[in-house]
Each structure stands twice: as structure tokens, then as C-alpha cells.
């Protein structure tokens, strides 16, 4: 019997087929997998008699699929996996917090989301009550930023240890936006499930709902019709275009470069309006359904949108060209917030942040779903690893996504049904779905119980992987460059806090 079960993106299998290993075998499988180029998509636990069942999902680009394995852990502690594979550090902290399953020997066992009294854990610390890492010495001073910020952004606390202007360490404490999403999804799907998924991270609506739809479709073996797949892909790329354009503008704004900042702010609105043209919501709410989509694109509307996409792309091109051609802006972007390829690999960065450090990670290429199995998008990457790299990768993706959207709008799959209704969920299954959102790949894992209801619904937002990257990027940097580095990652607070 093999040490793991291979599943493809959106493919379901009976849970019994996932091999249950000893802890040591699971750990060896993890180390062997990561050494062979796999990445950790999810690590979570389900309760069982006398202990926990530890589930591990690795994504293997070389195999084009996922490796699933699990191990029974007796009692409430086990030797930590983090010293061997740092990429699981946050998953283990999450396990300790959610399940009380303590990883012995974890180097940084701190709270993740502070599930407080609201979740019936009155003995837990309040949000932000944490022993922050401190650097000693008279020369060192501490700067605390947040959770209330000077802009209209989400809450999060940043603690800097500085020597003069230089940052020695940045510690990020989140959890202020914790809603208990994963707990609320257990027992589903219910009519509330889809709205909850749509608002996991408001700017990533299409990506999260697509991952959820793929999970339901995989469990019930109903593939969405080709036309629906194309509309979903167009919406996903429009989401990417809007956010990348907004990010490029925000980066310009942080170095006080006005023209690009104000133009990109406006153009982001144009992209959002294109999403609204498909489904009436600028953020794509209500478009993606399990089994298909809710709205069709008539030829006339598709043609009008195609022209608008071309015009909007020209605007982005003009606005950003100004920025790339200004030496003052490039001087700020280059060599700021550097994350080496080794570090990015170690902590398991995803999305543009990983691609900017030279990693070839893109779920659209590695684990294609729906239309992406037939229509290839070239992978955009860069080896710089600094703010410039992250900006440049975004620009490359804007170009490629715009071309992709235009192509799809010009030659849509022929008209037909928009949705195949999924039936009831089969019992005792597991399904893993991965979608490349604009921030990076996100992973949904659904387990069903004997009645065909979700017994576990695990979500890993790209921000979950990347916040650590921001901490690393700040090491040895100027504290005044923090906003710029932060914007170059542009991570979600609520997507992390769930």
C-alpha cells in the first residue's frame, strides 16, 4: 500500500482510501514530499476516539495532483514537524489553538487567531495578548502599530524592534477579524454556506466561491458546463486585473508618485465595473454557483466588454509605463523588502510574492481546473525578490490576464446550459480544491460525514502563507519602508482570520 493517496484538483475519494500511517511515516512522507518539490497545502486534524487524526495535503506540481495522507495521534501532543519543515509552522500553531493538539518542540508556539470567549473558550487570552519577541539593549526601541490604522484598512497589530531606523524584527499579531468561519461551515452545505464563502475575503470572492463550487462538483461528480467554466475564468481574471491594478497604484502612492497612483485607482474601478457587467456586483458576488454560474454573457454584451477590456488595459499600460520610466520610483522599489528564493521556499510563500522570488508556483499551471486545463496562461515570474519584483510580476500578470479575458470574450464556448444541479453529497468523502486567486493559491478541503454533511471544511487563504513572508521581508530594512513592503504583499486580514 502506498504512503499517500493521489487526488487531482477537485477529485473526490472515499475517506477510507486515504492511508492512515504512523506519525513517523507521515513525517517522513512530508519531508520526502517537500524535498521532491511538493508544497504544503493543508495540515489539519479531525477528532477521533482517544486522540486526533492528523491530515496532510501536499501539492505536487510534478504529479499534477495532491498527496493525501493521515496519521492517528494518541493524546494531545506530538513532536512538532516545524523544525524539519518550516512551512507548516502556522498550521501547527493553528492546530494547537483549534484542537488543543500541542506540537512539542515548536519554536514559535504563539496564538494565531485568539478564538476568545465568543467561541466558548473563556480561558483563552484576549486578542493581541501575547508575549511579543523583544530585542534587548539600550539602543533598541519598540514601535507598535495598530490594530487601528490611519487608513481604511482591516485591523492587525505590528510590533517592530528597531535600532534607529533599522528594523531588527517585525512580529505580526492578527485575529481581530476572526469570525469562526470554519466552525460555521460544519454541518453544511446550508443556504447560508455560499454567502459565507463569498465573503471569506471580500476581494477574493470569485476565487473562493470557485474553490467551493469545485469541491461540491467534485463530491457530486457534476462538472460545470463549458460555458459556465469560461465565464468563471473570465470573472477570476477580472478579479486579478482589478486587484493587481489597484496594487500597482497603491505602490506608487506609497512612494508619493501621484500620477500612477490616481490613474490606477480610477482604472481599478473600471475593472470592477466589468465584473459588475457580468453579474451586477463589482466584487463578483452571486455569480459562481456549485455546478455552474448564475448569469450568461450574451454575444452583444461579451463584445462590448471585450472592447472595454482592451481600452482599460491600454489605460493601465499608460499609467504604469510612467512609473517604470521614473528612476525615482524604481530606486525606491529596487532592493527594498528582499525575500530570497530559499526563504520563500522554506516558509512556503504563494502567489505573486513567491513568483517574484523566483519560485514557479501557479495553481493555474500546476493544478489546472475547469477551463485552465485547456487554455494555458504563461507563468509570470521574476528572480528579484524585492518590491520591484512583486510589482513587476503583477504587471506581467495584468498583461497576460487581459489577453486571456479578451480571447475568452471573443471566442466563448457555444451557448448552452449554464448550470448542472449538483445532487446531495455522498457520505464519507474527501475532496481538495485549489484555485489561483490574485494573491496566490487558496486551498479548500471538505470532508463529509456519514450523512453527507460537511464534518470538516478547511480553508487556507493565500494570506495564511504569506504574512510570514512580510515579516521576513522587513528584516534589516528601514522602518520607513514598511508601508511599501506591506503594500507589495497586500495581504488580507479577514482571509487570514477567517
Amino acid at each position, binding site marked *: 500500500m502506498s504512503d499517500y493517496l493521489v487526488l487531482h484538483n477537485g477529485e473526490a475519494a472515499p475517506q477510507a482510501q486515504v492511508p492512515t500511517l504512523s506519525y513517523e511515516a507521515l513525517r517522513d512522507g512530508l519531508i520526502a514530499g517537500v524535498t521532491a518539490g511538493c508544497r504544503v497545502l493543508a495540515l489539519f486534524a479531525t477528532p477521533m476516539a482517544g486522540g486526533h487524526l492528523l491530515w496532510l495535503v501536499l501539492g505536487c506540481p510534478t504529479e499534477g495532483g495532491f498527496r493525501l495522507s493521515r496519521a492517528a495521534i494518541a493524546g494531545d501532543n506530538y513532536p512538532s514537524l516545524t523544525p524539519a519543515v518550516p512551512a507548516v509552522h502556522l498550521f501547527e500553531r493553528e492546530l494547537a489553538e483549534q484542537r488543543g493538539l500541542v506540537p512539542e518542540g515548536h519554536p514559535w508556539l504563539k496564538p494565531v487567531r485568539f478564538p476568545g470567549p465568543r467561541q466558548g473558550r473563556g480561558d483563552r487570552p484576549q486578542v493581541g495578548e501575547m508575549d511579543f519577541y523583544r530585542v534587548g539593549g539600550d539602543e533598541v*526601541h*519598540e*514601535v*507598535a*502599530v495598530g490594530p487601528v490604522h*490611519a*487608513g481604511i484598512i482591516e485591523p492587525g497589530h505590528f510590533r517592530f524592534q528597531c535600532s*534607529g*531606523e533599522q528594523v531588527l524584527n517585525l512580529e505580526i499579531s492578527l485575529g481581530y477579524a476572526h469570525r469562526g468561519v470554519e466552525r460555521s461551515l460544519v454541518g453544511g452545505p446550508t443556504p447560508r454556506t455560499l454567502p459565507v464563502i463569498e465573503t471569506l475575503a471580500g476581494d477574493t470572492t470569485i476565487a473562493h466561491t470557485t474553490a467551493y463550487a469545485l469541491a461540491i462538483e467534485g463530491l457530486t461528480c457534476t462538472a460545470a458546463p463549458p460555458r459556465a467554466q469560461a465565464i468563471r475564468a473570465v470573472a477570476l481574471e477580472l478579479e486579478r486585473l482589478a486587484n493587481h491594478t489597484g496594487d500597482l497604484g497603491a505602490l*506608487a502612492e*506609497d*512612494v*508619493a*508618485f*501621484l*500620477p500612477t*497612483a*490616481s*490613474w490606477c485607482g*480610477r482604472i481599478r474601478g473600471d475593472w470592477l465595473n466589468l465584473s459588475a457587467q457580468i453579474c451586477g456586483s463589482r466584487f463578483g458576488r452571486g455569480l459562481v454557483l456549485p455546478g455552474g454560474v448564475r448569469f450568461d454573457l450574451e454575444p452583444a454584451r461579451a463584445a462590448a466588454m471585450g472592447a472595454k477590456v482592451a481600452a482599460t488595459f491600454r489605460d493601465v499600460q499608460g499609467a504604469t509605463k510612467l512609473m517604470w520610466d*521614473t528612476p*525615482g*520610483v524604481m*530606486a*525606491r522599489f529596487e532592493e*527594498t523588502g528582499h525575500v530570497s528564493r530559499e526563504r520563500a521556499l522554506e516558509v512556503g510563500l504563494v502567489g505573486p510574492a513567491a513568483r517574484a522570488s523566483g519560485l514557479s508556483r501557479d495553481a493555474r499551471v500546476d493544478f489546472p481546473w475547469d477551463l485552465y486545463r485547456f487554455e494555458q496562461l504563461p507563468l509570470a515570474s521574476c528572480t528579484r525578490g524585492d518590491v520591484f519584483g512583486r510589482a513587476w510580476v503583477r504587471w506581467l500578470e495584468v498583461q497576460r490576464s487581459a489577453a486571456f479575458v479578451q480571447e475568452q470574450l471573443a471566442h466563448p464556448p457555444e451557448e448552452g446550459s449554464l448550470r448542472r444541479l449538483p445532487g446531495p453529497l455522498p457520505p464519507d468523502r474527501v475532496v481538495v480544491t485549489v484555485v489561483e486567486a490574485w494573491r496566490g493559491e487558496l486551498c479548500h478541503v471538505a470532508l463529509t460525514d456519514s450523512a453527507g454533511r460537511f464534518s470538516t471544511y478547511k480553508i487556507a487563504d493565500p494570506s495564511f502563507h504569506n504574512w510570514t513572508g512580510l515579516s521576513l521581508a522587513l528584516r534589516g530594512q*528601514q*522602518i*520607513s*519602508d*514598511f*508601508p*511599501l513592503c506591506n503594500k507589495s504583499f497586500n495581504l488580507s486580514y479577514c482571509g487570514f482570520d477567517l
Partner: protein
Amino acid sequence: MNLVLHLLLLTLLPPLMGGVIGRVRALVAGRRGPPLLQPYYELVKLAQKSAVISPTTSWVFLAGPVVGLTTALVAGLMLPLGAASAPLSFTGDLVAFAYLLGLGRFFTSAAALDTGSAFEGMGAAREATYSALIEPALLLGMMALVLSTGSTSLAALLGGGAPSPLSVAGAPLLLVGVSLFLVLLAENSRVPFDDPATHLELTMVHEVMVLDHSGPLLGLIQYGAWVKLTLFAAILVRLLLPLGWGPAWADWALLPVGVVVVAAGIGAIESSMARTRLLLVPRMLVSACLLSAFGLLLLAR
């Protein structure tokens, strides 16, 4: 009459610079922008609010804005703004001018430190570092002016019927003019030295020092900042424009026009440049010092 005109210019003109800068920035960015008189409205609005004062602060916190504005206004009395000489003029007043502004800066920094906030301490440290480099640039530039005209009073250096110093010694004073423009940008926390429009505490220099001030206190600080900016703009205008040749009313009219042109120039720079990395700011200030020093050397040779 001249004194009244001088006081009117000194007190009423400054906020207009803010309006012009904001308007130019908006136009370049493709926006309509706030009204030209917006800074005046804001001062009125702030004056009507009440101030929140932290219990950890002392009298220094209140003294910061008051001293900042007072020193700027008194320094303004030493500059010849129009056809007439300055209302307050004595031998060596240019040193008093420079250090009045220094005093204002000291009290602003002290008020920032008084709050005990990590942000404000950071801002004060940055401001102190920069001012240590701004001062030599300013004083070396002033010395070049002294050498070219042989007087140590601002009124004699820059106006009151005297020909523009630029016509006496053009090339060296052009260097000084560039240096003084850099000083103007740095001293008034404009791009590329600082970003007055940012909301990001960690990147601010001047703005972060006044985070805890509110209501009328904040109004005093903003008004003081506009006055200071106007003083530097007026020095530049007097240095570069041939004032004192035409009728008196032309001189009085030329100054506001010149100041508005300088403001438009600042707006144009802010719209087309990115802010430099904080660590590189001292280098730019050192280059301002060098420009002044070269001007001085050329005159003294």
C-alpha cells in the same frame, strides 16, 4: 501703510500656497481637486474645534505649536516682502532669522517628545537629523548673499529698493538659489524629502510629530508651516526677481505672484517625482550644503 501691507501679506498669503500646491497636484493627477481657498476653510474649521490633550503631556506640548507659529511670524518681520524695507531690521538679523526658525523646530520636536509616543519620538529624531544638515545649507547660502552685497541685514540683502543680488553676482547666486530651493523643500517637508499627503505614520517626518495635536493646536501648527513655506518662497522670489526697479505697487504685487509661482513649482515637483528613500535624504541635504558652499567660494575667490 507699508507696515500694514507687510502684515497683511505675511498673515493672509501663506495658506494660499497650500491651495495652489493642492490644485496643481490634483490637475496633474487628472482630478478636479479642492478649492484654492481650502486651507483657509480648514484653519477656520480647526479653530472651531476643541483640542484633545493627553494627560501625560506637559506645558511643552502646548508651547510647541505656539512657539512654532510665533517664531515664524517674527522671522517674517525681518524679510522685506514688498517695496519697503522690513519692519524689523538690524545688523546681523539673518542669523536671528535662521535661529528663530531653529527655535520653532526645537519646540515642535520637544512637543513631539513630550507625548512619549514611539511614532513621535521617531519623527523628532528624523527632524533633528535633517535640521542639522539644513542649517549649514541655509547659513552658507546667506553668507554668499552677505559677500555679494556687503551687508548682514536681510532687509539690505534682499530688498528695499536695492537691485536684485542676482544682478550683482549671477552665477554663484544661482547655485545658492538652487540650494535654497532644496532647503525650502526639506524644511517644509515636501516631496521628495517627505510626503505631506501620506497617512502612513512610519514614513512621515514632520507630520508624525504633530499626530497628537488636534483642533486649534493643529490649526496653529498648519498655519505656522504655511508661514514658514511662504518665508522661504519669498526669499527665493526676492533673490531671483528684479524687485525694486518699478513703481512701489508693482513690487507689492510681484511678491504674491512670485510666491504663487513657487507654489506651482512645488506642486509640479510633487506630481512628477517619487519620494526618496529616507536614508538618502541626508545625502540630498549635503548636496544642498555643497551648492551653497560652491556659491560662497566663487564669490570669495
